[in-house]
Each structure stands twice: as C-alpha cells, then as structure tokens.
C-alpha cells in the first residue's frame, strides 16, 4: 500500500518536471522569435530587452536558462513582469487563487450532486419520460459553450429581468472575498456556479447513466436481485457504487483542470479576477512570464489532482489494491 502511494507520488514528480520542460520549450525554444524581446513585451526599449536577456540568462546555454527560470519561479519567487513594470508574479497568482477556488469548489459541489441525481434518475427511468427529459437537457448542456451560457445568464439577470422581483437581488459582476462578507460572496457566485456546473451536470449525468446501465448487465447485479434486495437498494448500493468510480476519476481531472485555469471563460464573463482571468489579461498585453507561470501553476494542479484521484480510487476500489 505504502509502495503504491510512494510510486504514484514519484511518478507525479517526474510528470511535473516533464511539464516544466515542455512549457519552457514552448516559450523559450520555439524558432523564429527572440524570447527576450517577447518577455519584454510589445515595443520595448532596447535596454529593457538587454536587461531581460541578462536577467533570464538568455545569453547562456539553454539548460542554464531553464534552471534560472525554475529558480525564479519556485525558489526565489521573484519572477517579475516587464509589461506591468515590476509586478511580482508569484504573489499576484497566489492572490488570485482563492477566487478561482471559490468558483470551482462551489460549482463542483453543485455538479456532483445534480450530476449524480441526473444520472441515477435517468438510469432508473431508462427510456421513459424522466430519462428522455433529463438526457435532452443534458445534451443541450453539453452542447453550449460555457461563456455563451454565462452571457445569456448575464443578459437575463443583469439586464433584461434585472429590475423584476426575480433577479433584483443579483449583485453586479465581480467577486467579493469570503472574509469580507460571506453572504455577498455567496450571492456574487450563485450564477457563476450555476453556469460553470451546467455543462458538467450534463456530462456527468450522461456518463453515470451509461455506467449504471452497463453495470446492470453484470452478473453481480443479477446475484443482488436474486438474493431478494429491493430494486432501490440494487440501484443505489450495487449498481451506482460500481458505476461511480469512473465518474470520480473524471471529477478529479476536471476539478484540477478548472482550478488550474480552465475556468477562464467563466471568470472572464462574470468579471471574477481569478487565475484564468489573470492569464487572459496577461494574454492581451502579451505578458509572457505571467502566462508561463500561470500555465505551470495550472498543470501542476492538474497533476496533483490526478495523483490524489488515483490514490482515492485505490481507497474506493479494492480491486486496485492488489500489488
């Protein structure tokens, strides 16, 4: 058991190093452009470019450059933006993290609960009306771009119906820290949560439904029914429990990806200053160190989430515990 955990963590570290190399190569070793000029930003003064070149060791061999970059990012943490003069990148990212975390965590609770409910209900009513309705809505949810859903939500809640009783409570776009006011934090995030989770409710509902229906073909479900368990118990304890494992794996990956910045679209639409929006703004001004730091932060989070999920799976699925 301990060997399994250690081996998984070791693999995680290897993957992280690999990712940092790939990211570094994308930004620093793509042909056709001078990385110093790119880091310095658009229309930078020649002196700035020279300073950048020296600061990042760009006149030295490529592995030294990699070392310098990694030191700036993880050891000294003094990576600075040249576009937004002197802005320290690591603290900026750290400050943005709670926003993203609030958004994703809340949405995750919503989509796991409703996704599971959707999948179980649809499977229980397979090919009947509730199933058809739920799967139709899920199909739509999966087909709509998140930011578009967000825009439509904003259109209704911020503009068209904002002055009616239904949505007059909706605060203007933006984030309120939890420490400042839990109630306003909650209100500000209600629609971002719903928007972000909508897609995943559809995805997870469909996935769980398929999983449960496939599980019903298994011999052990026949055993459970033959021994006289009620239909509800067979569905919840036997079929759902087995079918939920791939959903949990998926959840870990999606959670990691979203916290790592894939929530960018939702953040942009709702004006939440999370990691994603930070990246988006850096993109607009081509603030290269910022983008690179964000990408690395994001992928590390994904790798970490994957490792946690793998270990979690060993806990919930005894079959994986062998060797």
């Amino acid at each position, binding site marked *: 058991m301990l*060997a399994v955990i*250690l*081996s998984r963590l*070791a693999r995680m570290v290897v993957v992280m190093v690999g990712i940092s190399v790939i990211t570094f190569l994308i930004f620093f070793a793509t042909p056709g452009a001078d990385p110093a000029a790119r880091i310095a930003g658009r229309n930078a003064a020649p002196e700035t470019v020279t300073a950048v070149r020296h600061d990042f060791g760009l006149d030295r061999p490529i592995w030294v450059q990699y070392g310098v970059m990694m030191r700036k990012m993880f050891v000294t943490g003094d990576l600075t933006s040249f576009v937004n003069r002197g802005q320290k990148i690591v603290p900026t990212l750290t400050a943005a993290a709670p926003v993203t975390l609030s958004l994703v965590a809340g949405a995750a609770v919503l989509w796991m609960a409703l996704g599971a409910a959707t999948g179980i209900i649809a499977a229980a009513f*397979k*090919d009947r009306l509730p199933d058809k309705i739920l799967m139709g809505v899920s199909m739509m949810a999966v087909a709509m771009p998140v930011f578009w859903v967000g825009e439509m939500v904003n259109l209704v809640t911020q503009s068209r119906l904002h002055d009616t009783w239904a949505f007059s409570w909706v605060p203007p776009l933006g984030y309120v820290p939890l420490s400042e006011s839990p109630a306003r934090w909650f209100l500000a995030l209600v629609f971002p949560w719903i928007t972000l989770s909508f897609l995943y409710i559809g995805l997870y509902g469909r996935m769980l439904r398929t999983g449960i229906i496939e599980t019903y073909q*298994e*011999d*052990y479900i*026949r*055993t*459970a*029914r*033959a*021994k*006289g*368990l*009620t*239909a509800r*118990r067979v569905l919840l304890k*036997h079929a759902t*429990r*087995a079918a939920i*494992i791939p959903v949990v794996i998926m959840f870990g990956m999606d959670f990691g990806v979203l916290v790592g910045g894939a929530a960018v679209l939702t953040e942009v639409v709702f004006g939440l200053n999370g990691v994603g929006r930070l990246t988006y703004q850096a993109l607009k001004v081509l603030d290269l160190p910022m983008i690179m730091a964000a990408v690395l932060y994001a992928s590390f989070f994904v790798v970490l989430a994957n490792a946690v999920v793998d270990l979690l799976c060993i806990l*919930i*699925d*005894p*079959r994986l515990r*062998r*060797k």
Partner: protein
Amino acid sequence: MTERPTFPLPDAASPGAPSPILSIHDLRVAFRGARGAWNEVVHGLSLTVAAGETVALVGESGSGKSVTSLALMRLLAPATSRITGEVTLDGAAVLSLSEAEMVARVRGRSAAMIFQEPMTSLHPIYTVGEQLIEALCCHRPMPRAEARRAAVALMERVRIPDAARRLDDYPHAFSGGMRQRVMIAMALASRPKLLIADEPTTALDVTVQGEILSLLKELQEDYGMAMLFITHDMGVVAEMADRTVVMLRGDVVEDGPTAQVFHAPRAPYTRALLASVPALGSMRGEPVPLRFPAIDPATGAATPGQPLARQPDLGAPLLEVRDLVTRFDVRGGLLRRKVARVHAVEHVSFAIHPAETLALVGESGCGKSTTGRSIIRLAGGISTGSVRLDATELFTLPPGRLRLQRREIQMIPQDPLASLNPRMTIGEALVEPFLEHRMGPATEARAKAARLMDQVGLNPAMLERFPHEFSGGQRQRLCIARALMLDPRVIIADESVSALDVSVKAQVVNLLLDIQERTGIAFLFISHDIAVVERISHRIAVMYQGEIVEIGPRAAVMETPQHPYTRRLIEAVAVPDPARRHLRRTQPPSELMNPIRPLDFVPPERRYREAGPGHFVRED
C-alpha cells in the same frame, strides 16, 4: 457436522410428494428482437419439483434452460421479455406477483439461486462478509454483530477454511471454487425451500466440481431443500438428479426419473444426446482411439463409431520436446522491478510420433496451454529447453525462419470466434496463410479452401461469409480448415472442443480422427476433459503445477493410474450413469496452489520411475 436432521428423501423412482414446491404449467418466454418482433424461446414448459427433490433441467446451448430459471425468479428485463403461463412457487403465483412482492416473498426467500460464473457473480467492491450480511438482513433484520456471527456460521457451513478471518476479504482474494461456496452460503441465508442452481459447476475445475456437487448434495439433505439443477453435463445430471427433464430448443422432450431417462430414453433427442456423451471408463479394452457413434437425428439411433484405422508410426519421433521451461516475470513496486516469477512450465519433456495423439490433461493453471504455445514460441515469457521438429531445432531459429517453420505445426484454438478476424471473410482467412507461405497461386489457394470446406463438412459457398454468421461448431470447423490449408504435420489442439455442445463436440472429435486417419497428422490434444481424452488419444500426459506427473499409454494411465494426482483427477469426474454415483464423500476443499514463486526459487530436481512399458510417473 455430527447431528444431521434426517429429512425423508423421496425415492428416485417415485417422484412427487403430495404438494410440489414448484410447479410450472405452460411457461412461455419470449424476447423482443432488434426490430420489435417477439421471439419465443421457451414454448410451453411444464414441470414440478417436489419438496426435497432434485430435478435436473438439461439441454444444449439455446435450449432455453437458463432462460427458464431466470423467468422463474422474474429476473429477465421486463421491457424486453414476456413471460406467460403459470408458475406456483411455495404457494405463490409468481407470474402475477408485483415486483415488491417478488422481493418480499420469493427471491432469496422461498427460492434462492446460484449461477454459473462465480468469478463475476459477487460484487467486486464489497467484502464477502458485507454481501453475506446483506443477504441475511434483507429478509430478517438483525443486529450487526448477530448478522456477522450468522455469516461466519454460513461460511463454515459451506466449509470455507478460516471463515471468521476471511469474512472481511474481497471476492478477488478467493478462488473460483471458494467464490461458488460463498454464493451457496448466500443462497442458504434465508433457508430457502428451493435452490435453483444454474450450471453451478461448469466454470470450475473437475476436482473442484466434485467437491461443490458433494457439498450441494449434503446441504440439500440438511436443509431439506428442493433443487432445480440446470446443466448441460450429463455426468452431473446422473450424479445429482432424482428426476431429469430434457429440453431441446425451448421444448421439453423428455421428463422422467433419472435412471429411466438414462437407461431407457424415450425421445430420439435424449438417445442422441446420451450416445454423444463420452463416459469415462467406456474405453476399457479398446486398443485404439474410437470415433463417437454416428447418430440419426430423427430416430436417435446410434451406429457404433469406427475405431481409428491408422496406427502411429513409432519410428523416429516427429516432435520432440526436451526440458521445456517457461516462466513469466511478475513486476511490481516502485521501479517496476521483477519481484516474483510464475513457473508456468517446468522441465516438460515428451515426444510425439507421426499419426499419434498425445493428450495433455490437467486443470486450469496447470500450464498445459502454455506448454502448447511455448512449443510454437507464442507464449511470451522466457522459454528454454529444446523443441525439435524432425531435425529442426525450433528454439534457435531466427524469427524469419521460425515464421516459415510454423507452417508445419498448426494450432486449433479454444475460442474459434475470437480466433477469426471479424473483418475478414472466411475465404480471405483461409487463403491468407496459403499465400503468405507462397504455397501456390491464388486460384490454387481458393480451390484448396473450397476443398477443405467440403472436408470439414461445410458448404464451400460459405467462403463469402463473415465469422459472425456461423455457429460455434461451424467456426471450429473453419479453424480446423484454416490450419489444414498449410498441410501441417503436427496440430496442437488447445481445448478445441471444450466449449462445444455435446453433440457438436462428438462430431468435431470424429472430424479430427478422420483427418488423422487420412493424413497421418500428429495431435497434441490439450484438454481438461478426461472423458474425451480417453476416447481419442494414444498416450496421455498429466500435468500438475507446470510439471508432468505421469505420462504413458492411454490404457495404462487411465486404468492403472500411479500418481495420486492422476487418481484424484480421474475419481472426480462425474460419470453419466446414475448407477455409478460416487461423489458422496465429504472432502475438505482443495485449493490449487498458484505457481508464483520468489525470484530465488529453485525448482526441485525431479526423477521419474517407469511403471510399465512407456509409462513414467514422477517420484515425489
């Protein structure tokens, strides 16, 4: 186990206590097909099972026997199945009960069920204990501690060693036989009046099968259960049943006391079925392999099979295997290092002569299939030793030469459907090896394919079809034809007839004997089915845990077995003759040891003593 409640067993010859536990009248089961049409698979089945009685429902695949058992418990999907007729189970009209009443009164309560596949019939992510406790509590709520005690008692009752500790193990930690014991324990949880056993021993090894059958017999007496025993195995029927019901394509063709069904069958189909079943010991006094009787399906009349006319050529051996060792590394841990080794085949040596059949028998995991694959170097893992075909040493050939040499040794697989590429027509599949070995032009290949189709009893026009359009027996004929395309001198038949229905099995065995008689091909016949092996082999080698424990002429091994394992194997076979019931002893469960060994394991030196001419036995 000293006190045993005596329960009056009904006399095998006079079935029927006054009120039957189960009575079925005119049961019809239909499934909705792909296009919404109903397809009836059970046509008006009627039978009764008296209290404490064992009724066997026998038939080949597609006879509707398993569907019947699921219909009784209403376990078929209601959306795609239709069940009509009358089923009375312990006073309840099963077909008119609601789903909730089924749960409350019937399933697991008055009737319990065990299934064919113990490996997949237990929920993989709950411990055995949880599943047992669930079965106990769902009918009689009780405190957790009490349920646990009851679960341990049940596991002890089905003779699972070390029950208290094993209660918290997951199913994957149990062997197939042990899992089937757990299934039985679960079925006993509510002391049902009827146990429906759907092919409960089919997936098990022969020695384990014997143990499970004895256990079921014993429990039936203790609990006074009636049993509906569904099987295709006439040996098991003879061993277990008071009464036998024979089904053919959804119809009952014969129903009577077991002794009568076996000794004076009325229906032609029953006669045909019984004539096709190889009975262990029936070859006593026969000098050479014997074909199965040819059967007229209309009357069931059997014409005795012809003995094999061609004698093995006992000069120089055709295939000589010396000191064959095949091991697989088990990797694990942090750096995927080797942590252990599977000793699948250990120092196996034998020779086969032209026109001779050597059978390799043993139970699952004994290494017999790996031996077969190692000979043609398809086993993977690390193989050492020597395999000589005539003068050619196969183990030192470079890959290109080996590929060409494979023409001489062909394989007939266990699962013919899986062995045929689903995206190639049969014609393409047959012609391909011929052309690959540049044996002649395409026209000649096609002509040969058509000729071989004819020889294996199939219409050459079927060459245009795809594998999924054939039945199981036909597919095995196709695989035989494909092997014959290359004019091999040795054929390795790896459980080639094991999955086939009894009557089809007899035909395919006869086909193999015909081929041997005509071409003088040598067979390495790998099988767990000793009764078939007895029928067709010249010599027999018995394998146990990767080693040959006994090898010799068929008559010597079968009639005077020397090694204890050989004796146990032969004794465990259920013989299709109710007069020869013998599985009454309560044996302690035997667990096959797995052949995984630490890296530094050195296999013991083995010596063999000669028990008779050409009959060698491992000295233990």
